[in-house]
């Protein structure tokens, strides 16, 4: 409920969506017949009335300046009647009602450096968290990793028939996994590898010892012997999750030498076929190596090559691996299998193989 307070309006909510809908959308709202992928980045939507709407998907960087927003607005004013939409994956959508306009939009946004693509069987826009550009818990830098992967996989964004199905990649700077990294085809997640350090003065000044003892999932934190207003950490129990640092600045976990990234594959969200799947660990650690991240790029390329080579048409990466078996995945990619890959946490039993059926590799 909108409130007039001494300091101004509060709780106004959100402007009604109707005013932001393109006239063709408003007219055919809820009455669409079908869609077709006409070319990379362009979908043709046909309404039951026979009206046609083309949507043009434009890849944007993680951050956009107001100046760029105004330039995009200029294009939308010229061709999309002043309407523009954004997606949940850092891209923009322009609208057109005829193919000629579609081509003009593509030409104009691309001349400004923004690629059109990311529809149908393509690399979707890469979700990436803010990483080192804005976050205190980041173990790695998501935006520059995303940029490096875009450069390596650019053609898959720009095409729509070179991959067996869509490819969703997401990058999170730490285990908090902002962004859908735990259910992406390929996920890059920042990891720490050593227990936090304890800065007694800061713990005493800013943190609550009982809260810290409670928050650690491994019960690795206890009041410090002889100095109970600070804490000590049992390094053998600590699993480097960083949850305690998130709460308490006195427990810094950053370590430029040992922090890095892990790679996970095979997640998916839609309920199609066998339903949603979690991403699974395939590479526990690669070093932080900005700005071009060669180790990460190589690993991801290897995984994408595997996907292109072994997937059947219309299979998501995880579906391919589940069909041929993880033992085959490790064999075919040459990615080493280690003790880190075997779950030893709460739900681990479900992952152990029961029975005697598997492939000898």
């Amino acid at each position, binding site marked *: 409920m909108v409130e007039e307070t001494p300091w101004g309006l509060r709780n106004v909510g959100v*402007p009604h969506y109707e005013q932001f809908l393109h006239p063709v959308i408003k007219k055919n709202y809820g009455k669409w017949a079908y869609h077709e992928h006409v070319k990379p980045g362009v979908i043709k*939507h046909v309404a039951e009335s026979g009206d046609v709407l083309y949507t043009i998907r434009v890849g944007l960087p993680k951050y956009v300046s107001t100046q760029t927003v105004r330039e995009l607005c200029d294009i939308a004013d010229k061709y999309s009647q002043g309407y523009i939409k954004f997606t949940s994956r850092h891209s923009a959508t322009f609208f057109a009602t005829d193919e000629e306009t579609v081509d003009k939009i593509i030409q104009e946004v691309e001349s400004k450096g923004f690629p059109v693509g990311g529809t149908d069987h393509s690399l979707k826009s890469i979700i990436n968290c803010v990483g080192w550009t*804005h976050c205190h818990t980041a173990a790695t830098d998501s935006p520059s990793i995303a940029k490096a992967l875009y450069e390596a996989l650019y053609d898959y964004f720009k095409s729509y028939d070179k991959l067996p199905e869509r490819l969703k990649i997401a990058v999170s700077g730490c285990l908090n996994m902002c962004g859908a990294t735990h259910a992406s085809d390929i996920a890059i997640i920042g990891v720490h590898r050593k227990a936090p350090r304890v800065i007694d003065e800061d713990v005493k000044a800013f943190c609550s010892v009982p809260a810290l003892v409670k928050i650690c999932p491994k019960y690795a934190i206890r009041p410090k012997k002889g100095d109970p207003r600070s804490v000590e950490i049992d390094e053998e129990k600590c699993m480097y999750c960083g949850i305690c640092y998130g709460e308490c600045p006195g427990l810094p976990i950053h370590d430029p030498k040992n922090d890095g990234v892990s790679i996970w594959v095979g997640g998916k969200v839609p309920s199609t076929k066998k339903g949603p799947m979690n991403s699974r660990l395939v590479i526990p650690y690669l070093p932080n190596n900005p700005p071009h991240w060669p180790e990460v790029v190589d690993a991801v390329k290897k995984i994408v090559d595997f996907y292109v080579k072994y997937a059947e048409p219309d299979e998501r990466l995880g579906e391919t691996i589940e069909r041929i078996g993880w033992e085959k995945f490790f064999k075919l990619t040459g990615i080493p299998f280690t003790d880190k890959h075997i779950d030893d946490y709460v739900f681990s039993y479900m992952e152990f193989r029961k029975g005697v059926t598997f492939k000898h590799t």
Partner: protein
Amino acid sequence: MSEEILKELEKGKWPSYVTEIRKAGYEGLLKVYGKALEDKMTHFIHGGMVGVKGYDAGVIGRMTDMPDVMKTSHLLRVIPPAGWFYTTEALRKICDIWDKYGSGVINFHGATANLQLVGIETEKIEDCFNELVKLGWDLGGSGPDFRTPAACLGPAYCEFAMIDTLDIYHEIVMSYIEDIHLPMHPYKFKVKISGCPNDCVAGAARADLAIIGTWRDNIKIDQEKLKEYPEEVIKMAVERCPTQCMKYENGKLEINDEECNKCMYCINLMPKALRVGDDRGATILIGARARGRIGSFLGWVLIPFMKLEKPYKELKDLMKKLLDWWDEVGNPKERIGETIYRIGMGKFLRDVGIEPVPQMIYRPRANPFWYYWPGEVE
């Protein structure tokens, strides 16, 4: 050195976020970020409590350990219109305000679904917000509160939409707006609304409550339009259908809808020929969380089917029931799925008065340890 690394990130085919930060003239951020790349370590530290008067959420405090260069760089979460549809007029006005008070850097959109205005100093937050709010823009959720929901474009131009995602989003934002600004739950509560099982806003992976459009009656088959698809596509659908409920013989497709589990696969493959049925509503999943204390959860079935028509009373009643229960029994920092898991799905269902049905599980328990509740056994 750090400037050289930044320059590297401005090269290449993909548009560069560093270039955008530069275009906005946000020198402080370039220096702090450049140093982070050089040191291979973030230079952001825990932010202080910042915000606007009357709210306890919506502004994310950010501070750096390089106060001489840039001390603070807070972030405003603005609730976007349903489905992230805008007019250029609205965007230009937001840009004008953001240039006046903030850094000129915007994130379309953050993982929280909000429009994120990135980089403002503490003293300017209040004035900036007061200009935004006059135009109808409000702050989104943060901390242990009802978060800004997310909705797919749904009926706007997707023929698969079986519920009015945009309207449901709008209705939820407007009815929970005070809750969005007041963190008072055990932890965050995220609602995501997808028009069909394709779940474009990833509710199944990321929402405490995922509302996903579905249907109960038969898939509509247009045998004529089917001919526009090559044989191998039709055969692929038949072969891959997870319930093996399709048959294709003599150029005719049949579906045994009794056996169909509404996975959407065949419809995605041949949208011209196959349409979802008319008895539409939503399946409601509960409990997803990316990284919980005990692992990650994907959402599981709470309500197999709910009709969703304005004013969405049944949905609102359900949300109230869930939040009341969770407020009572949830531990701090525990998402609702984790609370349910800790307490037990059976007890939870009993507490909130939802009938257990087999659609909630894959298979019944294989262990012999369960409880009886007071009154059940004499």
